[in-house]
């Protein structure tokens, strides 16, 4: 148990110390939020779909969590290259504890990042529908964060260097983001797009977050919670397994 805690704490310390990374990771979501939110706002409203900033904010929160979480999982590659991973792998703690500690730490960091985006969005004019649903929003944020930190860890466990990094961004993270309903409503999305989105676990995270923050859900909040929770557990399992197989 204490091992999980020290690994969690390490992730938080690293996050807290690298202010540049913290701010850098906010740049993209804030840009998306402001440029798209205000840019597409009038069009969205003319189409009779309501306030775009309200619609977009949960999606952008999910996006910032997606990126931060995946990267913090992929950080395992840095630890491999800088040697610190060896130090942890020979310690008398199970690899499951190491993996869980790191993942929960990375997920906490990603969730904080999501909360910061929520605060920025609120300053820009976003209003939370129902404050009593805020804890549910945190649950969704944390589930998304755990899922993608575990995914990042799984990828990092089988990769030896950062060569494949660009590949992961362009062929995994970006598609996950664009096909999640973060930017546009899924109920009017044409066939194939809708199908792809329904296979994307992030869609359920975005939908659940939207329900918790603005009271609108397309897929149903219980479906969201069930599917997101299940997929998160599966990814935690895969991540732990691959992490436990690392050889140096």
């Amino acid at each position, binding site marked *: 148990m204490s*091992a999980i805690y020290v690994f969690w704490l390490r992730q938080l310390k*690293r996050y807290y110390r690298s202010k540049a990374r913290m701010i850098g990771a906010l740049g993209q979501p804030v840009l998306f939020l402001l440029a798209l939110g205000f840019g597409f706002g009038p069009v969205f409203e003319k189409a009779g779909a309501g306030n775009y900033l309200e619609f977009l904010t949960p999606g952008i929160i999910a996006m910032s969590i997606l990126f931060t979480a995946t990267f913090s999982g992929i950080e395992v590659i840095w630890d491999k290259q800088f*040697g610190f991973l060896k130090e942890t792998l020979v310690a008398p703690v199970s690899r499951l504890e190491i993996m869980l500690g790191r993942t929960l730490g990375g997920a906490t960091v990603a969730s904080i990042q999501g909360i910061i985006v929520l605060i920025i969005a609120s300053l820009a004019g976003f209003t939370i529908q129902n404050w009593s649903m805020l804890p549910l929003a945190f649950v969704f944020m944390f589930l998304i964060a755990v899922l993608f930190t575990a995914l990042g860890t799984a990828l990092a466990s089988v990769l030896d260097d950062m060569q494949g990094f660009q590949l992961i961004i362009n062929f995994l993270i970006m598609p996950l983001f664009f096909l999640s309903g973060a930017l546009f409503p899924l109920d009017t999305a044409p066939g194939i797009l809708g199908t792809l989105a329904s296979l994307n676990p992030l869609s359920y995270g975005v939908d659940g977050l939207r329900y918790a923050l603005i009271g609108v859900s397309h897929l149903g909040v219980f479906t969201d919670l069930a599917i997101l929770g299940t997929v998160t557990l599966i990814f935690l399992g895969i991540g732990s397994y691959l992490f436990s197989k690392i050889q140096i």
Partner: protein
Amino acid sequence: MTENIIEVNHLTRKYGDFTAVNDISFEVKKGQIFAFLGPNGAGKSTTIKMLTTLLNPTQGNIQLNNVNPLNEPNLARKSFGIVFQDPSLDDELTAYENMDFHGALYHVPVDLRKKRIEELLKFLELWDRKNSLVKTFSGGMKRRLEIARGLLHHPKILFLDEPTIGLDPQTRNHIWSYIQNLNKKENITVFFTTHYMQEAELVADSVAIIDHGKIVAKGTSQELKEQTKTQNLEDAFLALTGKTIREEEVTGKDYMRMAHKLWRK
């Protein structure tokens, strides 16, 4: 007759066609200081990785403190500590945090941990910099911190992979006297590699020399000197392993990458 704390039987590790460690067998007695010597690329680090559960052998058996690390890696990890040849510190944490983190992982009780961290950091003259991030340290300071960390918990077996590399003679002496003291006081078995033959001659109770993945000689320094009719361990080492310069040690991963690249063409 003291018992063997490390037993290695027919240990082999292959990377594709390349055999890094080729059917080696040896044992280390409890409480011994054991030097594992060999030129670059001879298979020292690969052997240490297999002994410390970081790498699975292709063939062969290992017993560490009567535990088979292959079957029970977690149990095996409880009995040893290691100082790696290459860096393994967290640069983004302070010196103290690196120590504390290690202590927590090895379940060193908090009070004892504090006491030992202070003692070791003072001993290696890092106490003044205990709250500095490791990334601001010089190479020598990092090395000292690495050693301090390895000595924080007192395991049954201490693996030291070229612990004194890049350190000046003063620091080397200083560190070895600490390790010898630890070995005597707490009966800790020390398994180390080095390229400084004088160091090995001075501190090791027993020596094994590995070359091209094979063990070419075993015994005390005295026995090796007699066997090769030489004056010191350095000459005995050269007599046993020849004078050709070896390629820099390449890790298994590099071999895999190399093989992968060749295969893709």
